[in-house]
C-alpha cells in the first residue's frame, strides 16, 4: 500500500535559516506527491504538487526516485512559514489522498 512517512514531528529553526521538511514515500510505480499546509487558525490547503515543479512562497520540493523522497525546502525561513506541513500522496483509487503524520515547523525570530 502507498504510504508517506514524515520522520519529524517538530522542526524548529531561526528566521533566515534554511528549512528542509523530510518526506519519504513507498510506492512501486510513479507516485503523485503533494505538500499541504495548515497555518494557525486557517484551513488546510494545497501548497504544491511535484508535477508542477514550481516554487510556492519560496518552497520547492523535488521528487527523488532513487531515495524515494519528496523533501520540502526553502533557503531562508520566515516567521510566517510557521505551520503544520503534510506530505501527501494520491491513493490507487485516485479519489483518495494519503496523508503523512505531519511536521510542525516553528520559525523563531
Amino acid at each position: 500500500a502507498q504510504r508517506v512517512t514524515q520522520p519529524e514531528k517538530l522542526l524548529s529553526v531561526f528566521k533566515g535559516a534554511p528549512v528542509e521538511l523530510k518526506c519519504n514515500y513507498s510506492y512501486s510505480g510513479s507516485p503523485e506527491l503533494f505538500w499541504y499546509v495548515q497555518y494557525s487558525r486557517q484551513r488546510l490547503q494545497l501548497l504544491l504538487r511535484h508535477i508542477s515543479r514550481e516554487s510556492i512562497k519560496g518552497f520547492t520540493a523535488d521528487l527523488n526516485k532513487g531515495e524515494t523522497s519528496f523533501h520540502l525546502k526553502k533557503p531562508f525561513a520566515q516567521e510566517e512559514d510557521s505551520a503544520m506541513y503534510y506530505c501527501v500522496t494520491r491513493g490507487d483509487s485516485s479519489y483518495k489522498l494519503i496523508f503523512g503524520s505531519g511536521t510542525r515547523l516553528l520559525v523563531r525570530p
Partner: protein
Amino acid sequence: DVKVTQSSRYLVKRTGEKVFLECVQDMDHENMFWYRQDPGLGLRLIYFSYDVKMKEKGDIPEGYSVSREKKERFSLILESASTNQTSMYLCASSKSWQEAYEQYFGPGTRLTVT
C-alpha cells in the same frame, strides 16, 4: 473562491448519543470527503463520495456512516458516539476525478465525547 462550511466548530456529546456532522460546499464539486485529524496520526479518511448517493469507505469507517442526498451536502453520522471518537473532523471537496489531488477543506469540527 471555494467555500466549504461545517455546521459546528465545537461539539460536546455524551457516550451513546447519535451525532450528525454536516458539510456543505458551494462550488458544484463532484467529490466530498470526511477525515479525522489526530496529533501524530495526520489525517485519516473515514468516507468519501464521488457522486450523489454514492459513497465509499475510507481507511477507518468503523463506527461511522455517511449520507449524500444532494450534491452540495455530505453528512457524517456517528450512530453511537464513543470516547475514542473524540477528534477534529475535517470535511473536504474536490472538483472532479482529474483534480482530486486538490481538496478544499472546511474549518473543522472539534468533537468531544464524554
